[in-house]
């Protein structure tokens, strides 16, 4: 029951604080820009009539993936920044003390905060992704394949970073924690490109470096897997777009990411349980 109380408190906090408003404004601006761009491109291509049906489908699929990629980046940022000070900030200000002396487990404070922030993050991503898909469906009458498999993978990517951000806050200061979470994300991002280029060049060592980076932080690999799900196999096999990974992560990466979330959360609970408040 106390997990629910803390989760509700966290939702309440997110709604009252400006950070979510800022994220929503950024999201709305992105959708407006995306819609406008799509509208202009479609208008131009229909006037010229220079795309055949297959080219048009490929173009629209790539445009959808570009929109979802931007949505996933905004979600990752929100996933890291929204809870980055939820534990560290309340520990250093002393706000956490009156909560922690109540007859609730410390574990429930961490789990409640995680659940509250996770709910906000899911809502935010679904709003952005829903916006992209609605714009695409309304303006171009196009829906990419594999959404039901792809979107949960992007949510898992956000969940991984959200959990790292919350767990880190149980031990680190707010700034260090933010640096660590974004540092890990950057590492996975670069690692993934090393992997893609290494695969294309047939360089096994580069590919392994990328895989190692994805194991340290599975965020970007999950996006690659999600993107490969949300495009037709022909596009994927041709590697015809920036969102067509040459080296597609296996489903074992999903299991790894799931275990990663559980382990990070367990570590956060352990750190917070031992922390002097």
């Amino acid at each position, binding site marked *: *029951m106390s997990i629910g109380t803390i989760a509700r*408190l966290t939702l309440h906090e997110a709604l*009252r604080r400006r950070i979510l408003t800022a994220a929503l404004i950024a999201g709305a601006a992105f959708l407006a820009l995306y819609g406008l761009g799509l509208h202009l491109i479609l208008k131009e291509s229909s006037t010229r009539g220079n795309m055949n049906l297959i080219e048009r489908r490929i173009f629209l699929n790539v445009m959808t993936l570009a929109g979802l990629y931007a949505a996933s980046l905004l979600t990752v940022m929100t996933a890291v920044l929204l809870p980055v000070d939820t534990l560290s900030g309340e520990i250093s*200000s*002393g*706000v956490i*003390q*009156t909560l922690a002396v109540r*007859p609730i487990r410390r574990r429930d404070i961490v789990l409640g905060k995680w659940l509250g922030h996770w709910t906000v993050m899911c809502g935010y991503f679904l709003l952005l992704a829903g916006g992209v898909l609605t714009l695409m469906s309304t303006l171009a009458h196009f829906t990419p394949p594999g959404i039901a498999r792809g979107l949960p993978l992007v949510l898992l990517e956000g969940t991984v970073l959200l959990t790292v951000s919350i767990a880190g806050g149980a031990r680190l200061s707010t700034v260090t924690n933010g640096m660590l979470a974004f540092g890990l994300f950057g590492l996975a991002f670069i690692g993934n490109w090393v992997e893609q280029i290494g695969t294309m060049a047939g360089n096994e060592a580069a590919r392994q470096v990328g895989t190692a980076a994805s194991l340290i932080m599975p965020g970007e690999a999950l996006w690659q897997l999600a993107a490969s799900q949300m495009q037709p196999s022909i596009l994927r096999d041709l590697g015809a777009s920036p969102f067509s990974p040459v080296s597609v992560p296996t489903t074992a990466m999903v299991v790894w990411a799931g275990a990663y979330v559980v382990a990070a959360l367990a570590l956060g609970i352990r750190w917070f349980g031992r922390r002097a*408040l």
Partner: protein
Amino acid sequence: MTENVIETHGLRKQFGAKTAVENLSLAVRRGEVFGFLGPNGAGKTTAIKMLLALVAPTAGTGRVLGAPLGHRGTRARLGFLPEHFRFQDWLTGRELLHLHARLLGLSAIEGRTRADTLLARVDLLDAADRLIRTYSKGMMQRVGLAQALLGDPEVVFLDEPTSGLDPLGRFLVRDVIRALRDRGTTVFLNSHLLGEVEATCSRVVFVKEGRVIHDMRVGEATGGFEVGIRSGTLTGEARTAIARLGRVLDDGASSPADSGDSRASLRIAVEVEDRIPEIARTLVERGIPVYEIRVQRKSLETWFLDVMGEDQRPG
């Protein structure tokens, strides 16, 4: 024998190389208003945090309300006002109390009723629906007190509840503590404001460098008295007789001798009140005229300085 609601044995807390609390052994009885006194940095806040399980002791044991430190069920019977009164400032005062009511497991109706009663008690009904971030320091303290009392606790921990507050805020704390005492609630008060402790506490301990160095009841004869005497010239024998009754603080040697005044003045500290008539008798039996006997209870401030020693520097 009165039940001990707080007991600790050799509690110690080490943060890296720094020892915050050295060796804390305490017993607080039910219904006591217990003053925990010491200079800044003496380990008072760390001690309270160990009792509330916010900080795990490095060594030693303790029990609060008969249960080991941090026992979850027992925490529902405790109230706590932390130092600096920091709360979720994006909530309104009323929302904060409702949150704590839920965490205490109170029903929604009971939570609302108690919150309203306490908001009225701390004079915050007008501001109950304003965000806490708009509150003055005094209002934060008041909503904090309401939060601490919400669960109708058996033991209330107040950590520097009046620091930085105006006299009205201090009076409110005094009032609340007296009301708690009258109901038999135990109060554990951390403070370095000696006047406040003197006005409210029934027992105080002095802490220095994380150790209890003195334990005394307030307002009882054990607290000691200072007796100032003005009399005719004292013979050597009379001085010796008086010195046997207490500790001579000032034998008047520094008073002007060339004023032609044959009177003597003397200050003496005695432990029990019965010594005072004995001093008077000693003088009268020897035919020495007595002009004045002033009796002053030894103030907590004097105690504090005596107990802490002259080497104590501001913390």
